[in-house]
């Protein structure tokens, strides 16, 4: 379940981008979960036409997924709408996605920009848009060139075909199958939210999702202005196979909707985050090795690790300054020291998940240090690393801190919900009536995430407030503009924390 401030932030984003009406519908769906159209109309007391249009906007921008499900009585099927919270929040980071593309496939930047701005587009629409955006006086790109750039995005999985519009999903059936599975030997199965389950049901299979637009010879000769239709192709004499391929190509260009694959972008940002985070700890001369390791990343096997072959690393290293002279014997110990594991010596794997977990802990600990001081930091770290309840005297002994400081710090941490305490009656003869044991609270991370949402919400509100002041025009405009830029920059940086805790 999304926290209170998370909902407010998402609604604020939608309101800024699409207006208050769409934001109302989004808010209703975020608070109530999956709802039917009539149900939203009833709850919001708005004309059905407006609600329908709002939903269409949200679906177009990948913020809402529709799915059909049998009604509670089971006599008919109903269509339900569900907000994809993460996709709403991704709207905060479009600039970051563009910078990823700029570094990887710069020639396709305009295409990604078009998809981010419009949510879902056919290739044909995208071509039209790209051509219209070209400044006058410069050469217009050929359709074939655009297609090549587009296919590059698809093969690198930055762009995907849109998921099923309205997949069938029965929450009750799903629950039954889960309980049936529970009887089987326990496996470490992740508990998925309804949102994730619906998204998984709607997602196409990988070959479908990332199949590129087929290439056909005719298109190369076509000009950009010429209407592109099946008849034009069918007039020519071709074998049945060729006609089929051409038909596929036309369908892929004119009918298939494409969108940005957020997963891939998040994975890229995750890799970049981990690579950058480790840089200050690297020893002199090991920077190129670390960079090459990330650049040589083989395939995206999963989103929790980076695997690179030693050959790939050497190749990338050769292109770097001072890297060409390095041998496998030099690289291997460095990679091992950077916690890269290898089984054969051919491929090295770095566990991103482990590092992300460590970074999350570091962030929370750093906040504890800033808020409550060095002693609180030591005590909190002890409780987190021990992972179990620790008695007060043991805390004093292990941390070698003054008793009174420990007592007051424990109280502060407990009061603010970072740690839990329990009173344990003492056995007779120990001289004490009771002991107190302390443990790091399980919910402190949820609380921290809610605070992150709250801080982002406040930054947005402040940006809007300054924008209003600017409109009024009574104050010093340059100063206000500077403040606004500071706030926007702060929000972009703060979004890294949100990514770390919610998306990585």
């Amino acid at each position, binding site marked *: 379940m999304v926290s209170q401030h998370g909902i*407010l932030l998402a609604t604020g984003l939608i309101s800024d981008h699409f207006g208050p009406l769409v934001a109302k519908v989004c808010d209703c769906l975020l608070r109530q979960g999956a709802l039917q159209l009539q149900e939203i109309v009833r709850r919001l007391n708005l004309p059905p036409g407006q609600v329908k249009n709002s939903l269409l906007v949200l679906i177009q921008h990948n913020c809402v997924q529709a799915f059909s499900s049998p009604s509670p009585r089971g006599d008919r099927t109903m269509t339900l709408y569900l907000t994809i919270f993460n996709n709403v929040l991704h709207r905060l980071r479009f600039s970051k996605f563009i910078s990823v593309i700029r570094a990887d496939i710069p020639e396709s930047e305009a295409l990604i920009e078009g998809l981010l701005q419009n949510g879902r587009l056919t290739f044909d629409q995208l071509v039209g848009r790209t051509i219209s955006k070209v400044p006058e006086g410069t050469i217009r790109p050929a359709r074939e060139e655009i297609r090549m750039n587009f296919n590059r995005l698809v093969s690198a999985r930055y762009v995907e075909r849109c998921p099923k519009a309205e997949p069938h999903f029965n929450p009750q059936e799903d629950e039954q199958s889960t309980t049936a599975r529970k009887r089987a030997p326990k496996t470490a199965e992740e508990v998925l939210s309804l949102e994730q389950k619906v998204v998984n049901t709607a997602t196409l299979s990988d070959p479908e999702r990332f199949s590129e637009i087929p290439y056909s010879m005719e298109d190369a000769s076509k000009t950009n202005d010429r209407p592109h239709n099946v008849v034009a192709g069918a007039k020519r004499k071709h074998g049945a196979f060729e006609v089929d391929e051409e038909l596929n190509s036309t369908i892929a260009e004119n009918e298939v909707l494409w969108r940005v694959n957020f997963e891939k972008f998040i994975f890229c940002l995750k890799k970049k985050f981990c690579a950058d*985070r480790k840089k*200050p*700890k690297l020893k002199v001369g090991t920077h190129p090795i670390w960079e090459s390791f990330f650049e040589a990343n083989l395939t995206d096997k999963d989103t929790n690790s980076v695997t690179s072959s030693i050959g790939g690393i050497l190749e990338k290293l050769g292109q770097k300054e001072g890297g060409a002279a390095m041998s496998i014997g030099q690289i291997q*110990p460095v990679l*091992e*020291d950077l916690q890269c594991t290898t089984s054969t010596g051919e491929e090295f794997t770095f566990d991103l998940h482990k590092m992300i977990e460590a*970074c999350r802990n*570091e*962030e929370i*600990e*750093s*906040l504890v240090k*800033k*808020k409550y001081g*060095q002693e609180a*930091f*030591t005590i909190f*770290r*002890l409780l987190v*690393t021990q992972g179990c309840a620790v008695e007060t*005297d*043991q805390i004093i*002994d*292990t*941390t*070698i*801190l*003054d*008793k009174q400081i420990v007592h007051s710090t424990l109280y502060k941490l407990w009061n603010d919900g970072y740690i839990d305490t329990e009173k344990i009656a003492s056995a007779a003869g120990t001289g004490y009536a009771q002991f107190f044991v302390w443990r790091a609270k399980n919910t402190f991370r949820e609380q921290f995430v809610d*605070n*992150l949402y*709250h*801080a982002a*919400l*406040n*930054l947005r*509100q*402040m940006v809007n*407030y300054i924008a209003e002041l600017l409109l009024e025009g009574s*104050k*010093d405009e340059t*100063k206000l503009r500077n*403040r606004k830029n*500071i*706030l926007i920059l*702060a929000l972009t*940086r*703060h979004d*890294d*924390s949100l990514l*770390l805790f919610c998306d990585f």
Partner: protein
Amino acid sequence: MPPRKRPLEPSSGMPAQPDVKPVISPPPKSAPAPVPAPAPVPAPGPEILPASILNNLPGPEREVYKRIYEAGNKGMWSQDIRYTMKLAAPTLTKLTRALVQRGILKEVTDVRHRGKKVFMDARIEPSPEITGGTWYHNGQLDTDAVAAVRRRCLDQIDRLGAATPDMVHKGVEREDPRAGYSIDQIRDILQTMALDRVLEECRSTGEGEFSAVRAGRVCYRRGGAPQGGMIEGIPCGVCPRIDECSPDGVISPPTCVYYKKWLQMDF
């Protein structure tokens, strides 16, 4: 905390030398056996005072002394003496004061209950339970001593790169043989430094910077610059009033004093 393990190498024949604050004085007859942790000793070293001295004491004083002697290195709280001997407070004060003046008893501070008056045979060293262990002096944490050891350990780590507690201990001893820190003390200090992220606990690979340490051994190295603190750059990150802040409330970003200060919105 898991029980402390002794170092793998047999300790050099040196007995546990006097520490910063002496632990319980070992019975003189015992060989310098490596005791893992100072266990509470029920009957401490010195025997009861010789009859010649005891007989010279007045009856009630003798009785008080005997009870306190029996309490051993944990001492006895004045209230407990009062209850067991059914004495009035002024009487007890008079008796104990006389015994302290004669040098037979001493008053010690219990680290857990600093207000309590605890008496003990003057020849017995109080147990770590009472003194608070090696890092305490007169019932107070000796922060200077702790800081001094931390500094010495850090010097050693800086010199050695990566080192086991044994190596650090030996290094500290070599530099200042009179300091006399025990290996357990060094280990405790290294652990707290790892908690503070000043040091980093890692397992040796036996290569590179770990070439001096046998592979697989736990050792410590410099922790590097602290990371994190992404949320602290904005006022809401460490705001004490964040729970009272809401978009349309009395405290909200446009009315926030911290934001005003941060953005210098005083124009």
